[in-house]
């Protein structure tokens, strides 16, 4: 199978869906780039080159550069979706949700319910998230818990190039609004990615490794770190399950519970700030529904409750690591077995 980068995987998904369905359009700031400027067409192909080449293939009618007006074009994507297109809007950094969130959570997310089931809003918002780029506090956040909180939105967070292509094609074909999170530090990651189009269903977690001792649930980029930690722990004879939920809305809580019932121990790894993040949400659901199965307290591995700092010395300290995950797993293994009631 051919190796492709995360960037190529998303590009290929967009290209194949635009070829398959003429109602798919892409829009965003610099989505081609250089609009109205004297230099090259498709100068950027998206801020990180993800949409490069779509302009040449599909033209200005379907590859729509926008002014820096997130409210206008994210709202336009919602309005276009409700009236028959399948727009994929590029919200360059998820941190920019602050200037367009109304269009997402009060408009797009609400149409179907608020209009009595008579609206469909098949839009995708692609957005970059995550720390590690020395991009500081306004360009490094995760924020997917905020979107997960909103009924009516779906949230996909691919953990590899293979996942990115399949989840993106699913997102475009999905009839609900989907927020699609791309970690900015993963674009050059490579993976085996099939040439043909394929979908990965939402709400079905992926078991990357199965072990008897501890369940590690990890989100997005943290999946890679969790696998690294599990490899190290295996050498210490600690046998981990690594589970990637793939989507936080819908969330495959069933698979998480099933795994915790087998291992009795849970570590949740989430790059989002620790208050009301996916780790707290998953931990609460497991505590509520599988308390009897737990042999040790649940552990959450998240950054501290601070903005993402700029200095590499501080940012590296902020981001969860394989070492921190390993330490959390060792601590749940060391916890004394809970006395039966």
């Amino acid at each position, binding site marked *: 199978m051919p190796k492709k980068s995360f960037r190529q995987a998303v590009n290929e998904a967009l290209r194949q869906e635009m070829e398959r369905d003429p109602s798919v359009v892409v829009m965003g700031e610099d989505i081609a780039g250089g609009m109205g400027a004297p230099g090259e067409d498709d100068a950027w192909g998206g801020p990180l080159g993800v949409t490069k080449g779509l302009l040449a293939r599909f033209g200005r009618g379907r590859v729509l550069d926008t002014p820096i007006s997130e409210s206008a074009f994210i709202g336009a994507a919602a309005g276009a979706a409700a009236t028959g297109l399948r727009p994929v809007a590029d919200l360059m950094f998820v941190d920019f949700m602050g200037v367009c969130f109304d269009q997402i959570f*009060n408009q797009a997310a609400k149409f179907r319910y608020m209009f009595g089931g008579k609206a469909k809003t098949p839009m995708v918002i692609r957005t970059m998230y995550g720390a590690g780029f020395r991009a500081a506090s306004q360009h490094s956040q995760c924020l997917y818990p905020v979107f997960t909180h909103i009924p009516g939105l779906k949230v996909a967070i691919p953990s590899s190039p293979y996942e990115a292509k399949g989840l993106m094609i699913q997102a475009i074909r999905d009839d609900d609004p989907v927020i699609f999170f791309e970690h900015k530090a993963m674009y050059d990651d490579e993976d085996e990615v099939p040439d043909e189009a394929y979908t990965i269903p939402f709400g079905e977690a992926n078991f990357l490794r199965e072990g008897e001792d501890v369940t590690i649930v990890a989100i997005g980029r943290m999946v890679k770190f969790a696998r690294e930690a599990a490899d190290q722990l295996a050498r210490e004879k600690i046998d981990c399950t690594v589970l990637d939920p793939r989507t936080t809305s819908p969330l495959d809580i069933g698979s998480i519970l099933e795994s915790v019932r087998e291992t009795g121990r849970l570590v949740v790894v989430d790059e989002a700030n620790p208050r009301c993040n996916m780790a707290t949400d998953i931990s609460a659901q497991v505590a509520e529904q599988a308390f009897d199965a737990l042999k040790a307290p649940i552990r959450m591995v998240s950054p501290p409750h601070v903005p993402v700092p700029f200095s590499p010395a501080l940012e590296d300290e902020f981001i969860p690591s394989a070492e921190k995950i390993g330490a959390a797993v060792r601590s749940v293994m060391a916890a004394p077995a809970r006395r039966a009631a």
Partner: protein
Amino acid sequence: MQLNRDDLLRAWREMRTIRAFEERVHTEFAAGGIPGFVHLYAGEEASAVGVCMHLSDRDVIASTHRGHGHCIAKGCDVKAMMQEIFGRAGGLCAGKGGSMHIADISRGMLGANGIVGGAPPLVCGAALTAKVRGTGGVAIAFCGDGGANQGTTAEGMNLASVWKLPALFVIEDNGYAESTASAWSLAGDPVKRAEGYGMPGTRVDGRDFFAVHEAAGEAIERARKGEGPSLLHVKLERFFGHFEGDAMTYRAADEVARLRAERDCLASFRRRVTEAGLLDGAALDAIDREAAALIEEAVSEAKAAAFPRPAELLTDVYVSY
């Protein structure tokens, strides 16, 4: 666009239906039968009807919190609207939207909107759909003088111009954003804002149905020809409060009575068409009776209609589950 007798009768029927609907919702709300927040359009009818007379189902409008008039003018079912406002299962949105969210996408009504300035970006999208699909449709954003001051309106106008969308922005300036006078809150001249975004802007008197109809017709024709968006600043009057229950202490004591006497777009229309001999009073009176009967039926049916079943709480959050 010339208005023939049928057009005039239709305009009168729609404006009278809106007025009767709103006057009745006012009394029903006061009587306690209607839950939630209600914002009435009475006094502004010539704007919704004058604009929407140019539209068909392929055209899309998006409205405001004061949306009943736009819904009726765009062809939403009046009885289903009334059921919606009463929170009944047979409502246009199955009782899940209420007064502020009445929508019927099959009729090109993309929703009243509880967020001031909600419509302009959405309308850019609806206009984009028309442009990409080549339907010949246009999309129209209604917003108030309050909504005109939202960034969404500024961004929407800019994007519509940049993308040369078949769109129209209608600023219905009823003098008040909630309790705050537009004379104070609307800096400069809204028509000049249009100029700033490279689109034609026109001011019309919302008391004058014919002026609205003509100005909207020109803007809509321009949009249909692919010449881009326009702005219409309609000066009109709000006969009720911002919301039902608003004591309107911010208005002059005799202000509403004076506006009803001097600035009623329905009275103006009736005088104009009867004096010109275009329609006779009897034909108009007959429509008045029919509108009243329709609203009477709508209210009695709404009151007798079933509420949604509790299980409906969980349905229609997503398409797929």
